[in-house]
């Protein structure tokens, strides 16, 4: 009797364990399946770009060859020509100058704005914070016409410094919003302790809030970098001479002439242009995720 009483729960436990193992196996299988599908889907374009950029123009143009493999040998000619015989390096330099300036302006403005809106409660601060986020919701395809008038009026049409002026309209609202969420997640006792320790508001910001909110600041920096590196509509509208052009528009306009597409160089250009954001993401990915999640939960 007692044996039976003991054996029944054991059998039940076994069944439960087996079922748990089976359901876990299915969950893992499904996860791997969809992750592999996802990875393939997103890695096909970069793969195609790499393969095409390493082919000769003749092979790219030859319709009979398999586009997915390099049949006639690897060549770096596309990169060489791109870097030596086109204005690609000028575009790269212009983009780097614009991006660095935009990131600096964005971070200075949005950190200060977020600190005051998130921590220094004053009349209307909540409405202002929401208002700033709402401006982010207006797309650049709507803004570029009025901005054209403004940029023209201040004499910055066809100058990449005009981009330094207009890109922050895209980056500042979102970065401020991320930073407001991040600053609000820091316990209020921390600034009270700093106040009692003798810190003024600027010292509190530089010595306490910026170091503590570093993951959020890095997330915002990456966002600002990506937006200004990849912006297309504004440079397309405001820049028209080659010496002022940036990568996104410059590569396309100089390598596509009427219906002639220089596919090899286009792909090589796209790869080189994608390298800086890729490197930055690779190094700061952990901070980026931590920053976004903290901002999301508290925003």
């Amino acid at each position: 009797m007692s044996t039976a009483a003991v054996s029944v729960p054991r059998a039940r436990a076994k069944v439960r364990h087996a079922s748990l193992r089976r359901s876990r196996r299915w969950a893992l299988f499904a996860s791997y399946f969809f992750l592999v599908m996802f990875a393939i889907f997103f890695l096909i374009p970069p793969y195609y770009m790499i393969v095409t950029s390493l082919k000769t123009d003749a092979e790219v143009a030859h319709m009979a060859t398999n586009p997915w493999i390099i049949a006639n040998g690897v060549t770096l000619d596309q990169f060489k020509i791109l870097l030596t015989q086109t204005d690609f390096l000028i575009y790269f330099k212009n983009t780097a100058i614009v991006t660095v300036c935009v990131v600096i302006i964005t971070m200075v403005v949005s950190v200060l704005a977020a600190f005051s809106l998130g921590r220094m409660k004053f009349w209307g601060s909540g409405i202002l914070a929401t208002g700033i986020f709402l401006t982010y919701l207006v797309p650049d395809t709507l803004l570029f016409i009025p901005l054209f008038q403004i940029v023209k009026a201040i004499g910055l049409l066809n100058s990449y410094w005009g981009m330094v002026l207009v890109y922050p309209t895209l980056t500042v609202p979102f970065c401020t919003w991320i930073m407001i969420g991040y600053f609000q997640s820091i316990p209020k006792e921390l600034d009270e302790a700093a106040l009692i320790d003798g810190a003024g508001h600027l010292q509190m910001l530089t010595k306490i809030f910026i170091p503590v909110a570093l993951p959020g600041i890095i997330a915002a920096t990456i966002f600002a970098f990506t937006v200004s590196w990849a912006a297309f509509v504004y440079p397309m509208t405001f820049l028209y001479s080659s010496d002022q052009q940036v990568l996104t528009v410059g590569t396309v306009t100089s390598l596509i002439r009427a219906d002639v597409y220089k596919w090899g160089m286009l792909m090589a250009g796209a790869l080189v242009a994608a390298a800086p954001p890729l490197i930055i993401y690779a190094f700061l990915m952990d901070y980026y995720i931590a920053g976004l999640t903290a901002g999301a939960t508290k925003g």
Partner: protein
Amino acid sequence: MAEVALRKIVKRYDDVEAVRSIDLDIPDNEFVVLVGPSGCGKSTTLRMIAGLEEITSGEISIGGEVVNDLPPKDRDIAMVFQNYALYPHMTSFENMAFGLKLRKFPKAEIKQRVEHAARILDITELLERRPKALSGGQRQRVAMGRAIVRNPKVFLFDEPLSNLDAKLRVQMRTEIKRVHQKVKTTTVYVTHDQVEAMTLADRVVVMNNGIIEQIGPPQELYHKPRTRFVAGFIGSPAMNFIPCTLESHGGGMRVRVSDTVALPVPASRVAQYQGAVGRQLTFGLRPEHMTEPKQANGSGNGSDSDFTAILDVVEPMGMETMVYFTIDGTEVCGRVEPNAAGEAGASMRLHANMEHMHLIDPATGLVL
């Protein structure tokens, strides 16, 4: 070091009056504990002393200087917060040195002060660790260290032990008392825990509903509460409150708590209660004064103070046993010797030590 004075302090948030015109004088070196239930205004009062909350009206002075309009950094105070509020990106040393650095102290003096405070708090080996690598108790020590190094006029503690577990709380309580005995700085300490208040304070300030109910040394508050609130708030388990009628009996008085139980008022109190004969009052007696009958307990009228109760609940605590019973529908708690009580449901003879009785006017809440 300095004395702190609060004069007619009011704090109003829109329509809510959190602190209602309180006056408080804290002499130099004194350890004062503000105690009361949540929302009684004790933390608000502390934060007003710190300068973290503006006062609506009144005057706060520290060391004889009115500080109403001074920012926290110029009040020469140090504060320890409930959640420690340590800077997470700094080591313990840097946390403690931060205030001194901002005040541009020489490096050598900063080092000497931090090391001295670390020795007092026994955290020398933790100075290079970040808060993340410290336990709750260690963090609280570092937070105290941050206050000590400044050598301020006043220490302010805002429920510093509430985040610690029960055992650590007792340890840190002793630690805080030890530190105060060493550094002798005027201290204002806020807690909702009356045991903390009783054990730490030179004087306890009991607050309720934005006002001060009573100020006094712990023993005075315990034995001579002025209001029903203080009588009920101080002491654990809380004082028993039983509706009663005060009646004349022979040459003395009796407190009638039920049809069958009337307890004699000690002769020493008769004159005090003379005007209240015949009135409906509230009889208050602490559980430790509701015990099993003893031969020589010095309670005055001997067996007249004894009565029989049917026990509802019996809680053995080891060194004593708590017994719960009802008198005319009111639950009453008694504290008896470990083996004195029977089982729940049994009857037990109990003795009310009337020397410690209180009579409260139910209309005003004042102890007569």
